[in-house]
């Protein structure tokens, strides 16, 4: 059990990794990655039961899927700092011959990744399939999947949402990164999502809300979600976050969704985040 301070320290290092990774290749998606640094840190440090001796089948392990694959930097950083692969490998992100592709993939054999994502809207279906296999196999572990909120504009998500409730896939926790921003602007301006709680509830899900940029609230929220499993309904967490969280000039806008900081901006951003576990 880590203290909240220790988890916050880890998240600070993860945010430094994200910024340095996207800066090094002048590409990638820092905004959503920064917003989800607390979620991934909490999930891998406090919530999930897993082995870093990676096996694709993940039998008797909790599984994590990332449906909005473009925020790969945060997942890569947390996987590396959780022991799935060397931290030094973060320096290969988006470079030729790397296992750290722009979007997560199984193709290069990176430990911790169980399906490719990037083309949006597909992760929930895959997570449901993995959760159903666990049930069929008598495996009592939980499947987690993270989604962007803009991603909910994809129709497949709602096919999957209907299917999960119908089949009582209650070992599944889908978290929505509810930052209300996407590449082109605010979700309300691009294609409004409406009342997400009401939508998921109407589809038959158990819905809860969580502050995803408050470490204590995130840990407690994920624990609460876990306690709701096994009750006949899939679980949805509407996780409020700020795109660019942790870097003042990246917050409050959609502009840093998919833009890397320049040298000066990186320096400014890193000055706001303590190096707690050593940069890669």
């Amino acid at each position, binding site marked *: 059990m880590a203290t909240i301070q220790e988890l916050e320290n880890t998240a600070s290092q993860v945010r430094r990794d994200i910024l340095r990774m996207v800066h090094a290749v002048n590409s990638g998606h820092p905004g959503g990655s920064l917003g989800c640094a607390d979620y991934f840190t909490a999930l891998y440090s406090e919530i999930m039961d897993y082995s870093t001796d990676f096996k*694709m*089948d*993940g*039998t008797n392990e909790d*599984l994590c899927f990332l449906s909005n694959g473009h925020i790969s930097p945060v997942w890569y950083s947390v996987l590396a700092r959780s022991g799935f692969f060397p931290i030094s490998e973060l320096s290969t992100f988006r470079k030729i011959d790397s296992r750290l592709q722009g979007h997560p*993939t*199984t*193709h290069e054999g990176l430990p911790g990744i*169980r*399906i*490719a*994502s*990037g*083309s949006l*809207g*597909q*992760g*929930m*279906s*895959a*997570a*449901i*399939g*993995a*959760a*159903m*296999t*666990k049930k*069929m*196999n008598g*495996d009592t572990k939980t499947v987690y999947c993270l989604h962007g909120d803009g991603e909910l504009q994809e*129709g*497949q998500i709602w*096919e*999957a949402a*209907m*299917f999960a409730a*119908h*089949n009582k896939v209650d070992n599944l926790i889908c978290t929505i990164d509810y930052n209300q921003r996407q590449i082109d602007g605010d979700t309300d301006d691009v294609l409004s999502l409406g009342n997400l709680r009401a939508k998921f509830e109407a589809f038959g899900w158990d819905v809860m809300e969580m502050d995803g940029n408050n470490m204590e609230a995130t840990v407690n929220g994920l624990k609460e979600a876990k306690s709701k499993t096994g009750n006949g309904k899939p679980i949805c967490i509407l996780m409020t976050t700020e795109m660019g969280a942790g870097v003042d000039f990246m917050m409050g806008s959609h502009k840093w969704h998919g833009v890397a900081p320049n040298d000066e901006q990186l320096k400014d951003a890193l000055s706001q985040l303590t190096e707690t576990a050593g940069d890669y």
Partner: protein
Amino acid sequence: MAKYEYTEMKDTRSGFGDGLLEAGKRNKDVVALCADLTGSLKMNAFKDAFPDRFIQAGIAEANMMGVAAGLTIGGKIPFTGTFANFSTGRVYDQIRQSIAYSGKNVKIAASHAGLTLGEDGATHQILEDIGLMKMLPGMVVINPCDYEQTKAATIAIAEFDGPVYLRFGRPKWPVFTPPNQKFEIGKAVTFQEGNDVTIIATGHCVWESLKAAEELEAGGLSVEVINIHTIKPLDNDAILKSVAKTGRVVTAEEHQMNGGLGDSVAQLLARNNPKPIEFVAVDDSFGESGKPEELFEKYGLGKSSIVAAVKRVVKR
């Protein structure tokens, strides 16, 4: 050379249904998903035998493909079942990212392929599916020729580790291959040996090719008939060996000329042994409502079209 003998009329989709049941009996990890077409895909026998291993996906094919991909994580061997149209074009990105690129052991079972779907018309008569699927890296593409071959193929792909596209059809069609045959993925079957021309056929066009060969032989030509049930990986050796002997090729398939078996054969020959080739296939056209045999005739896929193509190629 494989022997063949006409026995009865039977649909290839029933070969899939019976093969799926057998695969399910042999391996408890075989599971099946269907998008509201259980009867059409002949999946009821599997559903009745293994209700806990049958997943009704509803009319939501994109999700079905993703769920199938996820089911492999933990060791299941999922077969998805719907019409070929909804098994490919409708869900191409799902198959590309979640199944092919992710290397998932999903078997995509696609019925009602091609014109022989018949009266439902062009909306459902997909003629582009082989091309779509063979372009995906690592995807195995199989189009069996009759009930027995489809059944054997279904059992075989359950034992193969990797994504497979299995294409079959709706109509009752001649059964001429033996029961309980061994199906080897990627291996051509030679039904008739000859010296003047090689007919390379897949799916429902194999029977038409054999009938065409009979007529041509009666007219004095020596015709070799090769059944390519696995379009990818292609049995390059069998094709090159045959063409080295005959020097002329006709391909026959219930598919667009662009992107089908003929394309694959032409590419192989162009690179290794360029020879005259004619293509029996749908020529850049959609289908229409009608009876299977009427459609085969109108769109140039039947026996007479194959005979004509052979006569053209031997003059070149």
